Structures are given as structure tokens and as C-alpha cells.
């Protein structure tokens, strides 16, 4: 058994948990596409392989997936896509069920922990029986919930692993791919038949006395919300939601008086059921945005709102930790009033007040490409104000081609790599720059300076973001250069080891003029009291000393 992934909420814990099983070979890959390709290689030799990623990660890996659908597999291959309806920690809420249809591969959707366990096994079986990768689609509420699980019996496969040449299957040149495509279409027909007979697509007959004449077609966590709200209704519970069980849907429609589809995000099931010529009720279009919950499902089913008054007021936005090295860089960038193209990671929080110095965030690696594009079209005096920031893990994931692009096309500009030696936002996972693998063994470490120079950067500077003056000097100098400059801001994430940098600082109330300049750092350890005095929380303070550097009257010691 082999598994690979790049961390991403809400998929990260899958590989972290799997890695605790010694006998499963697990790895972090630099990005989802590589993870998928490595899994394909393992599968080609007969090993059962699993690759996990968040929804947007599948965009990165989709190049491999679309053709993997043609080649098929040897050892079962399961692709886990963890979607994030409601965008708890994502830049969009795309519905990856569409990938199953797009890639013409079967999809299973567990609705709780027990089904997740069961469906992974089913997915491997289906994969091997139908020579197809299988998409296992979960959402945040499946990933980040726990429910009771039965322990199954392990079955060791003990396969002999080897690669057998088979160009017609594995070499997707046009002549071969054309033949494989016809097989894909045939496979979809057999999968459709499977969907009709597989027990995880089940009809639960309701009691007519309790609303059983209402028929609900649903899958994933939406099933649980429906059962909560309408326990007496009849259900077509789809464990395998692509391809749809056409006969079962028709049979179910005949059983009930009113047919409703309840699903999160896109009208994926709804459109297909309508295409079968059935009259079906579904949620209003505005509920295609955001995640469902029992309350919204109640509204969908009854048209009535929850009488409970009062929503959740206000908000508590996430902030960079006390002692976070990113703060030093963003403080300088905000002082210099630069235009900052940003990327995905903790440092995206640099967009929030009071730092407010990150101006774009599209996708992994976009910071460098975006800065390059700006640099290409802006006049020289404006171009000088653009800088890209990108984290270490994100740079290795998708930032390198952007830097190469700038070097190759002789696009001038400055790129700041925020190296905190971890994939911080998802909970501190290792990557090729940390010197450790998922299994905890020591390994080779990327040398960012050599790497950037090799890609074509004209200069590389390394600074410690705890030293604000150094950061400012380095950024200014880099931006004054004509060519392509890189600044590496290196400071380990404070959550690694959770060590305090130095003794907590305190404010000398006699010296403090209450000018509030220290508040511009946005450090959660610096408190503004109601009487206007400033205080540093002794438990929260990490002792990084940035605030004492910005204080004009040396009141923070």
C-alpha cells in the first residue's frame, strides 16, 4: 500500500493518520500533481495507492487525473478529494463532484466516519474491478467530524509488485488514447449498472404515517442533516453518486409522492435527475453558495425558517501568532507602501488589518506569476513598487516555475520567500525544505539560495525577519536592483517546538506615550487597555522583540 499527498485543509489529517501505520509507505509530495503521478507509478506496478488532497489541489493534479482515466490502473488507485463548502479555510468552494463526471470515473461519497472507512475499501475494489481510478469525495464536515467506527479485519494482499510493459494501455499517444477513450465510455456503462446494484446506493423506505411519502435523494453529509430533520421520510441514499443509479432513481420516484434532491453546492444530482425526465424539487439557487446545515435543510424541506432568533454576531479573525516571523516582513512592506502580490498560507493573513499589506491571493504559486504580469505591463516607476511574497512550502509547490518565467523572460522584479521551515497553515507538515519526511526520517534539504540562483535570479539576500531594520534594508536594496532579486526571510515557525524566543517583554508605563505605533504590528500579545495604556500579555508574548524595535521612546523592554 502506498499513499502520497500535499497538505491542505480539510485533507491533511488523512496522510498524517495513515503515516502512523508502519506498513503503509506514505509521503508528502511537493504538490498534488506530483503526489498523483507518484501514486500512478506505484499503481502501475500493482500496489494499491491512495492520493489525498483538498479540492483546489485536484485542479493541480487534474492533468494527471484526466489521462489516468484513459490508462486505467493496475493496483487499485483511490483519489481523495476533500472539498470545503463554506470555505472555512480555502480560496473557493468549487464542487469536485464535477471532476467525476469530467474525468468519467466513479465517485463514492461517505456520509460519516464509518462509511469513510468502508468506502475506501469499496473504492479499491471498484478501482481494480473496473480498471479505473476512483474519486472518494468528502467535505469539511466529514473530514472534521468523528463518529463511531467498527474495526474491520485486515486482509493482506501480498502481491508481487512488478511493471509489465503495455504501451497500448500506458503510452497515451493519440493512436493509443483513441482506443482507450472508447474503453472509458464502455466502462462508464458498466459502472452505471454497478451503481444500480451496489448496496451503498440504498432505498430507505419511510413510514407513510411519518412523512414517508416524501422522497429525498441525497449523499454525503447532507444525508445526515436530512435524517436529523426528517427521520420519517423515504431516502435514496447515494454512497456511489457517480454514475447515478438510473433504474433506482426511477424506482424511487415511483414510490414517493414528492421527490426532493438535497445536496451541497452545485445542482449536480438535481440536473441529472431532471435529465431523466423526473419532476423534482430542490434548493433555491442562492443555496448553491455556502455549506448546508440541519437548519437550512429544514428550510429546503419545509420552506419554514428556524424560529430561533439571533445569528452569530461579530467575528474573531485569525491572526499571525505572537512571535511570527511573517509579521516583521509585512510590517516593513506596509511601511514602504508597496503593492504586494500574495499567495496561499499563514502569510495571507497579512491582508488583514492592521498590516493590510497583501494585495492579491489567487492560488498556490500565483504571487510570482501575478507580480511578473504586473511588471510586464506597468511603467517602470510603478513597476518598482511591486513585490511578490510566497511561503517556503508554496514556493516549492508551484512558485519555482513562476521565478523561472521571470528569469527566462527577463522580467525585472523582487520575490520575497517567507521561509518558516514548515507548511504552517495546515498544521506544520514537512516538505522538501525542512529536512524531514512524513515518516519522520531525516532527509535532504532544498538550498533556496542555490535553487533561486539556478533558476536565474540575479541576487539572493537572506534576512532574519525579527530584525526589522535588516528586512527594510534588504527589501529596499533588492527593489533598487534592475534585474530579478530574491529576498529570503528566514525564521522558523513559532509553533515548531512551541519554544519561547526570549523572556516576555513588558511596557514601561512611565515612558510609554500611548502613541500606539506598536499596535500597528497586529501582535495579539500587545493589548490596548480601556484607559489607553498598553500592556503586553506575559503568557502570549514570545519575546521576539519587534515591538521594542518599533517603539520610538524605548518603552518596551
Amino acid at each position, binding site marked *: 500500500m502506498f499513499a502520497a499527498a500535499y497538505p491542505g485543509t480539510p485533507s491533511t489529517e488523512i496522510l498524517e493518520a495513515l503515516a502512523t501505520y508502519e506498513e503503509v509507505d506514505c509521503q508528502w509530495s511537493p504538490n498534488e500533481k506530483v503526489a498523483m503521478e507518484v501514486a500512478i507509478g506505484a499503481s502501475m506496478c500493482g500496489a494499491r495507492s491512495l492520493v489525498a488532497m483538498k479540492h483546489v489541489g485536484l485542479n493541480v493534479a487534474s492533468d494527471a487525473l484526466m489521462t489516468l482515466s484513459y490508462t486505467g490502473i493496475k493496483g487499485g488507485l483511490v483519489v481523495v478529494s476533500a472539498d470545503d463548502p463554506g470555505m472555512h479555510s480555502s480560496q473557493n468552494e468549487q464542487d469536485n463532484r464535477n471532476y467525476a463526471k469530467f474525468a468519467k470515473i466513479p465517485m463514492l461519497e461517505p456520509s460519516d466516519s464509518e462509511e469513510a472507512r468502508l468506502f475506501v475499501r469499496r473504492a479499491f475494489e471498484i478501482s481494480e474491478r473496473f480498471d479505473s481510478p476512483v474519486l472518494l469525495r468528502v467535505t469539511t464536515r466529514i473530514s472534521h467530524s468523528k463518529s463511531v467506527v467498527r*474495526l474491520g479485519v485486515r486482509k493482506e494482499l501480498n502481491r508481487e509488485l512488478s511493471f509489465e510493459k503495455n504501451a497500448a494501455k500506458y503510452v497515451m499517444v493519440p493512436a493509443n488514447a483513441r482506443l482507450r477513450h472508447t474503453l472509458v465510455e464502455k466502462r462508464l456503462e458498466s459502472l452505471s449498472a454497478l451503481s444500480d446494484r451496489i448496496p451503498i446506493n440504498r432505498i430507505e423506505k419511510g413510514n407513510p404515517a411519518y412523512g414517508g411519502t416524501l422522497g429525498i435523494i441525497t449523499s454525503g453529509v447532507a444525508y445526515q442533516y436530512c435524517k436529523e430533520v426528517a427521520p420519517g421520510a423515504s431516502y435514496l441514499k447515494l454512497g456511489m453518486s457517480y454514475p447515478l443509479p438510473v433504474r433506482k432513481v426511477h424506482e424511487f420516484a415511483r414510490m414517493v409522492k414528492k421527490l426532493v434532491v438535497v445536496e451541497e453546492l452545485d445542482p449536480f444530482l438535481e440536473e441529472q435527475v431532471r435529465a431523466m425526465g423526473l419532476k423534482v424539487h430542490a434548493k433555491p439557487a442562492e443555496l448553491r453558495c455556502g455549506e448546508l446545515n440541519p437548519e437550512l435543510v429544514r428550510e429546503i424541506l419545509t420552506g419554514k425558517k428556524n424560529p430561533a432568533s439571533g445569528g452569530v454576531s461579530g467575528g474573531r479573525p485569525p491572526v499571525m501568532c505572537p512571535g511570527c516571523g511573517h509579521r516583521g516582513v509585512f510590517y516593513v512592506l506596509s511601511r514602504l507602501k508597496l503593492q504586494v502580490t500574495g499567495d496561499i498560507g499563514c502569510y495571507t493573513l497579512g491582508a488583514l488589518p492592521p498590516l493590510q499589506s497583501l494585495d492579491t491571493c489567487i492560488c498556490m504559486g500565483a504571487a510570482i506569476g501575478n507580480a511578473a504580469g504586473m511588471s510586464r505591463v506597468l511603467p517602470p516607476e510603478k513597476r518598482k513598487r511591486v513585490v511578490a511574497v510566497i511561503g517556503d512550502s508554496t514556493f516549492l509547490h508551484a512558485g519555482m516555475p513562476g521565478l523561472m518565467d521571470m528569469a527566462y523572460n527577463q522580467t525585472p522584479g523582487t520575490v520575497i520567500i517567507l521561509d518558516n521551515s514548515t507548511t504552517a497553515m495546515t498544521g506544520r507538515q514537512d516538505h522538501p525544505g525542512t529536512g524531514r519526511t512524513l515518516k519522520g526520517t531525516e532527509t535532504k534539504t532544498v538550498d533556496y539560495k542555490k535553487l533561486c540562483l539556478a533558476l536565474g535570479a540575479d541576487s539572493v539576500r537572506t534576512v532574519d525577519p525579527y530584525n526589522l531594520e535588516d528586512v527594510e534594508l534588504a527589501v529596499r536594496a533588492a527593489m533598487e536592483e534592475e534585474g530579478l532579486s530574491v529576498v529570503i526571510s528566514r525564521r522558523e515557525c513559532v509553533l515548531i517546538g512551541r519554544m519561547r524566543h526570549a523572556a516576555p517583554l513588558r511596557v514601561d508605563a512611565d515612558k510609554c506615550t500611548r502613541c500606539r505605533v506598536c499596535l500597528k504590528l497586529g501582535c495579539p500579545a500587545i493589548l490596548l487597555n480601556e484607559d489607553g495604556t498598553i500592556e503586553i500579555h506575559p503568557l502570549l508574548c514570545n519575546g521576539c522583540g519587534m515591538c521594542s524595535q518599533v517603539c520610538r521612546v524605548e518603552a518596551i523592554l
Partner: protein
Amino acid sequence: MRDPRTKVAQARPAGLQKPEKIDIFLTGIGGQGVLLASEIIGEAGLSAGYDVKKSEVHGMSQRGGSVTSCVRLGKPARVRPRASDPALWTARASARRPPERPGKVYSPLIERGSADVLISLHPEEGRRYRGFLRRGGFFLEVPPDIVKKLKNPRTFNIVAVGMLSAHLGIPEKIWMDAIAASVPAKHLEENKEAFLIGKGLQARGGGPTLRKEIGGRKQ
């Protein structure tokens, strides 16, 4: 991984006061240990024979943001039907029990206005999520001063677990085992102590920390 079947079979002390379904909503901020507290409550519930479902939101919350977690406990036999919308039933059916698997918890999320207990580790967060409490539900707020009595201020979250334990009727041993299963061995004793401090707060007749919310949400 534990085998839940054995756990269900073992814990059934006689005379246990055990409500049929309990929805517990926890709230606090990143770093306070909301998730560990909900983990322990879930473990204890499972050991005491409840069906357990637990959900949480993290990711960005690790950075000091708002953290919430729902723990839902369902007694595995003989359960009052959960109030479901009458519009989904016919009129004559309302007196009977719906054909629901008894005690099974479905949704991992708790609806607004239906939590039996709201546990707040942070006053502001407690206020924000107050609307999740049902009428007559318990609002358990850990008094911030209690931190002075704790050997390790990080065990603040376990005080909340202790406070809750006073209302659930799950034996103390089950709680202690759940704590032992969830915290590092070297911190076990201070966590156990925090649990007992929390339990003590409730045992003394509630005091300022237990406010039974008659009417739940103020309209």
C-alpha cells in the same frame, strides 16, 4: 484505534442518570484547547455507551481565531424522538414515534436554538454563540479567575470538562480514563486536578458559574 463494540458492552453501571440525547456546543478561541475538551467528552460519551458524533472547525482557527466544536451524544436504546418538523408528518402521526433508529446521532452539527449545553472558554465567544442554546439549556462558562488555582494554566479547558461532568451522570472513572487517553502522561495529574476543580465548582450548587438559562435566549 479502539474497538467501540467492547466499550459499549462494558460500561453500563446501574442507576446511571443518563439523558437520551445530549447536544453539547463548545466555544473558545484558538489555543485554548476547545478541541481537546470536545475530544475528551466524546471519548467519555463513547465509553459510557452513547452513540457519539463530534465536529469541529479548525484550519485557520489555529491562528487565534474562533474555534467551535459540537459533541452530540445519543443513547443507544429507547430514545425520545427528536422534534422534527410536523409539516413532514401527517397530523395523526404526531403522537407516535418516528421510525428512527433509537439514539442514533445523524447530523454532526447542532442547530441554532437546540444545544442542551453551551460550554464557553472565552466570554466573548460564549456570547456570540449563545443563540445555539435551547430554551432551558445549560450555559457553562469557565470562570476566568480559576486559572489562578491551576498548576498549569493550559488545563483551563479541562475545568470545563469537569463542570460538564457534574451534569451528565457518567461515572468519574470514565472521565478520568478519557482524560488519560487524550493528554500526555506527564501532564495527566494536573489535568485530572483541573477536572476535579471544575466538577467541584458545579457540586457547590452552581455558584456564579452555573446559570441555568430559563428561557434560553433573551428575545
